[in-house]
């Protein structure tokens, strides 16, 4: 009896001390990995870029003390401290390529030259490389990535859920053709060294994408991969065609490989991972079953509404070999999966072999939300991903402004 009692007491002490010490900064990660929280409390920290020296730039979606870009630098004890802040605009995109830091507001893209320490030379005078991108207050973030040929790719999200005549209204049908696609709902390509480029002077690279936040250049396939945020509210808008459970699981969140001219089909279709088909959207005459062969197939599809905000192909060699060239995806976490529990709020991993996903994805890092997995109850919501020269993985959180670092120790 005494043994049982002391076991129970020990168990509680154990649980209590785990809760107190929070190994791995509260994250649940595979064996052999270790996580630490580098900084916290900087608000809406969106995407992230790491310099060769291992210091960190992040883009904020809400100004922190009047600034939209923060620079965290390692001090003598390897602790990250806020060392510089600049840029009076909010936004999401940030990327480093060939001694330039590229950043985006919700309408423009800038670049700042870096010195040989990886630090911005003149934070007050960036070059404005792209301007005049549409921002109508919905899907307004402009994520950016560069290829190895001097081009920059920018997402211009569609300012609509499903291109209905009346956005999100029950029974309202889709506009034919969807006029939004002329200036949004796609990816535009520009010259990284250009000046005041506009959609007209750039290249309309890919279309039929509702909204992309996470995107990355795959150096193995030499092509652009994006994660689309699928449409919302199939049940709310077409209650006769979809029950609440179908609406919670559908449509799939899709990864697409893009080339010039790719059309992914929004708003005319959505993808259903349960039947592996492109389904005609109800706004365009679909009944929940009617499918089509038109438009690009996804590289891989995930359950609905997980909200992929970050995509990173792992090019390091410090993780076990199955991670080499695979994709990490930061799922911000769902809001519209009622009556099912909310999902996401984790980092997923998709193994890639010869430039193709194997189809077997898994949750890599979980536990960001803490006890309450809801959009406003979550302690952290993963958003941006980056990798440093040492092969460590970094994750940002745009709820409580934290940055996590995940390394492989083998222990």
């Amino acid at each position, binding site marked *: 009896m005494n043994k049982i009692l002391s076991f129970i007491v020990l168990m509680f002490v154990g649980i209590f001390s785990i809760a107190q010490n929070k190994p791995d900064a509260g994250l649940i990660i595979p064996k052999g990995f270790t996580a630490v929280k580098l900084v916290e409390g900087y608000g*809406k920290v969106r995407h992230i870029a790491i310099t060769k020296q291992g210091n960190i730039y992040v883009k904020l*979606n809400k100004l922190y003390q009047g600034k939209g870009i923060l620079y965290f630098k390692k001090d003598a004890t390897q602790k990250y401290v806020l060392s510089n802040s600049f840029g009076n605009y909010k936004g999401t995109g940030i990327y480093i390529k060939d001694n330039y830091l590229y950043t985006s507001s919700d309408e423009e893209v800038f670049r700042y030259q870096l010195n040989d320490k990886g630090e911005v030379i003149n934070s007050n005078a960036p070059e404005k490389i792209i301007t005049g991108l549409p921002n109508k*207050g*919905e*899907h*307004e973030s402009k994520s950016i990535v560069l290829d190895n040929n001097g081009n920059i790719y920018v997402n211009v999200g569609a300012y609509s*859920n499903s291109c209905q005549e*009346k*956005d*999100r*209204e*029950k029974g*309202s049908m889709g506009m034919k053709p969807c006029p939004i696609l002329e200036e949004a709902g796609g990816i535009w390509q520009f010259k990284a060294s250009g000046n005041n480029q506009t959609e007209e002077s750039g290249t309309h690279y890919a279309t039929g994408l509702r909204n992309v936040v996470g995107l990355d250049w795959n150096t193995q396939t030499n092509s652009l991969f994006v994660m689309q945020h699928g449409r*919302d*509210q199939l*049940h*709310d808008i077409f209650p006769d065609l979809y029950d609440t459970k179908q609406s919670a699981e559908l449509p799939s969140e899709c990864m697409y490989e893009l080339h010039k001219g790719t059309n992914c089909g929004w708003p005319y279709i959505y993808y259903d991972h349960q039947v592996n088909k492109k389904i005609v959207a109800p706004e365009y005459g679909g009944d929940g079953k009617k499918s089509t062969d038109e438009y690009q197939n996804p590289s891989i599809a995930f359950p609905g509404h997980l909200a992929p905000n970050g995509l990173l192909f792992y090019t390091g060699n410090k993780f076990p070999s199955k991670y080499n060239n695979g994709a990490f995806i930061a799922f911000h976490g769902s*809001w*519209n999966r*009622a009556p099912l529990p909310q999902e996401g709020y984790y980092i997923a991993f998709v193994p890639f072999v010869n430039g193709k996903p194997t189809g077997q994805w898994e949750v890599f890092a979980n536990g960001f939300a803490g006890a309450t997995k*809801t*959009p*406003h*109850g979550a302690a952290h919501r993963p958003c941006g991903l980056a990798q440093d020269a040492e092969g460590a993985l970094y994750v940002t959180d745009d*709820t409580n402004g934290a940055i996590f670092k995940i390394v492989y120790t083998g222990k």
Partner: protein
Amino acid sequence: MKIPIIILAITCFTIAFAQTKTKPVTQTDTYKRGKGVYTKVCLSCHMEDGGGVPRLNPPLIKTTYVSGDKKKLISIVLNGMTDRIPIDDEYYSNNMASHKDLSDQQIADVLTYIRNSFGNKASIVTIAEVKAVRAIR
């Protein structure tokens, strides 16, 4: 003679007490029906606890949009909302659709529900108030 006076006194007291102590709003039929409308129509965006979704769908907690001017609130339900207005210094990007297909009764019920849920405490919304706003063109 004394006993009837006591009985009369007790009776009067009981009647008076029953009249001053009205049923709490949360136990009324309108509130209960309102919860049903909320679950069916509003919950998917504004969430079960009225907390909304940061950056996308505004919360229904501690905001004058909910507990303030009833006409404005009724009008948002009837006409939807596409303006990008900061609420407590936050912007919300999703458009709200019009819900004019709800009946006056359903709108009165659901607004009474949200004005007295999630920590909110505000007056009830009547069918007549909804009718009056719907009549404005």
